[in-house]
């Protein structure tokens, strides 16, 4: 597993060289492809697979949040005015804010309903399908769907009522 981060990096770069506008890049595709590359399918049983996604979800979330925080700070910082300018042109500030807002909202959701928080983490940051999420959490696929639909609604409202 130690190679997972490099592998995710490489895959993302490859996706970006394709049509930028088609937005086919999903964390799902990234994490799954990294998994397929890194784990020998003949050895991989479902339990390992589920453990991988569960861990990857948490890592992915921290990676993204950390990056968004640092970039936000570097945009505001006075130490690197040139870098700040470059980055402001390259990327939209809005997306950083969105991810940090999502992270905060997700923390709040998890404090109210830990299971919904975990479902969201696996689905959104781990790229887990309903069945994989169910397996990882030891709950039924139907429960995953129910929790997911409420969590999505709650998060969407939270993010749009700021």
């Amino acid at each position: 597993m130690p190679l997972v981060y490099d592998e995710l990096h490489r895959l993302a770069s490859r996706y970006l060289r394709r049509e930028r506008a088609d937005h086919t890049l999903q964390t799902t595709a990234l994490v799954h492809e990294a998994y397929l590359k890194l784990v020998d399918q003949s050895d991989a049983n479902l339990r390992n697979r589920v453990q991988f996604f569960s861990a990857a979800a948490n890592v992915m979330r921290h990676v993204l949040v950390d990056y968004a925080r640092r970039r936000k700070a570097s945009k505001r910082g006075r130490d690197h005015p040139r870098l700040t300018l470059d980055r402001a042109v390259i990327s939209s500030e809005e997306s950083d804010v969105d991810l940090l807002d999502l992270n905060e909202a997700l923390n709040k959701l998890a404090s109210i309903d830990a299971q919904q928080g975990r479902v969201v983490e696996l689905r959104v940051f781990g790229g887990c399908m309903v069945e994989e999420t169910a397996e990882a959490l030891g709950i039924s696929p139907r429960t995953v769907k129910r929790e997911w639909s409420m969590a999505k609604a709650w998060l969407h409202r939270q993010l749009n009522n700021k």
Partner: protein
Amino acid sequence: MTPERWQQVKQIFQSAIERPPAERAGFISKACADDPQLRSEVESLISSSDQAGDSIQAIAAEAATETLADRSNGFHRRQADRALRGA
């Protein structure tokens, strides 16, 4: 919101959302007959559910694109590796 209240909202929301859209309003009215606050909370979530689409995944996908594409972002490899090993 108290945990009890959350469970109440959850139960009604999840039952409502599994019904055909045309039946939802009636179901919610009935389930929240004596509790307008509960009703308004569930209705607000149902309406948000209709609008949510893939908005949450889109935020993460966009952030993943930007983060992972940045080669200068050499950070947390150790953090990431440690977390995966600990799994």
